[in-house]
């Protein structure tokens, strides 16, 4: 029965991906992609990676869908009648099909040729986990063993946000992105009032439980971002001006705290990002809290896009 379920999941994922490739309408492709994200989350639980499933459900099923659907609506609104994108020519399609089939075949062969006693870092990850005071090995990898990766990833998210902001036209620089709908429907307002309390509760729970069970900062940050976006879409709160000092401080605050604790490691524990053992858990939870806020803000602003209103004088 388990094998059957796995086979079915794989088949549906591939069918949805092919649908994305074949359908003529962009919105149809995006809706199929949202369904793909849902099933992908399920597939990750089948692979025993519940942390990844949570991330995929929050990002793939939630905010990526909003990002793509907003972009599609923008394109559709501005498109002149009869200027639908042309289809690819036959020759291009054939070359592309051959190239991608070769890549897929190569990857497939690599999958089949995995070494048989699979190499694993699970035992060493568990062996050192007592020193961190954590119970969830994935969180331990993210925030203790490979904390440098996580730190750099935060910087990458901020760089992407800088890139998005850099696309602001000069006269709008420092203003607020326009997210609010012109005429938000009544159920959206209701949703934006009722859902965020649940969302914040679940996000706090995710950070808290992330120390010992699946969950953690990324998941919590994306939930918070989704809730924030919902509130801004309904117009209950205005989108913040990008020149706001407080906003910029909060964005930089998470990574900055991470850096500070990292350098402190030289002084107390003899290495960058080395935590003194008795304080490890407290430091990690502190970093997680600051990072969650920074991630939520950064992801929300990434979806909101560059500012499109001139700053208020």
């Amino acid at each position, binding site marked *: *029965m*388990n094998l*059957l*379920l796995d086979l*079915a*999941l794989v088949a*549906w994922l591939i*069918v949805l991906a092919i*649908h994305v490739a074949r*359908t003529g309408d962009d*919105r*149809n492709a995006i*809706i*199929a992609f*949202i*369904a793909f994200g*849902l*099933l992908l*989350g*399920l597939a990750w*639980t089948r692979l025993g990676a*519940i942390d990844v*499933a*949570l991330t995929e*459900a*929050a990002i793939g*099923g*939630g905010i990526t*869908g*909003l990002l793509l*659907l*907003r972009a*599609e*609506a923008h394109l*559709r*609104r*501005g498109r002149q009648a009869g200027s639908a994108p042309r289809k690819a020519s036959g020759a291009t399609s054939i070359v592309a099909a051959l190239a991608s089939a070769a890549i897929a075949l190569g990857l497939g062969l690599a999958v089949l040729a995995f070494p048989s006693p699979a190499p694993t870092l699970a035992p060493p990850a568990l062996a050192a986990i007592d020193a961190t005071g954590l119970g969830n090995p994935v969180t331990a990898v993210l925030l203790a063993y490979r904390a440098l990766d996580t730190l750099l990833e935060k910087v990458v998210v901020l760089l992407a946000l800088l890139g998005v902001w850099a696309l602001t036209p000069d006269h709008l620089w420092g203003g607020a992105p326009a997210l609010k*709908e*012109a*005429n938000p*429907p009544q159920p*959206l307002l209701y*949703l934006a009032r009722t*859902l965020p309390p*649940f*969302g914040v509760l*679940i996000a706090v729970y*995710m950070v808290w*439980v992330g120390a010992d*069970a*699946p*969950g953690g900062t990324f*998941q919590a940050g994306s*939930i918070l971002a*989704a809730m924030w976006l*919902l509130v801004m*879409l309904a117009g209950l709160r205005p989108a913040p001006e990008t020149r706001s000092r407080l906003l910029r401080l909060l964005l930089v605050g998470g990574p900055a705290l991470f850096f500070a604790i990292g350098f402190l490691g030289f002084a107390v524990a003899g290495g960058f990002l080395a935590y003194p053992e008795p304080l490890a858990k407290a430091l990690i939870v502190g970093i997680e809290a600051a990072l969650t806020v920074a991630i939520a803000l950064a992801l929300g602003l990434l979806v909101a896009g560059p500012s499109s209103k001139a700053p208020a004088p």
Partner: protein
Amino acid sequence: MAEFLTGAALFILAVTALGLFRVLRSELAVERMMAVQLLGTGAAAALLLLGAASNTPAMTDVALLLMLLAAFSCAAFTLGQSDEAADAAAPKGDEP
């Protein structure tokens, strides 16, 4: 018991996914979104069942998240729709 729960999860997923595949060819984007909603609920039900079958309570959290964001993606979808309606009502020719 675990076999039965896994089987029920497979059944629910199969039914909702087949519904989705039929509707993906439909004319109306709204109906596609409805099918995605049904798949979302089906996926949450399957996660609960699988979590009970394999005794991993953390799977409930994934279902919780799916349900939290189900309405979110639906709202995102209707935003594009309302733009369309607003465009139809507004006079044309207001170039940005």
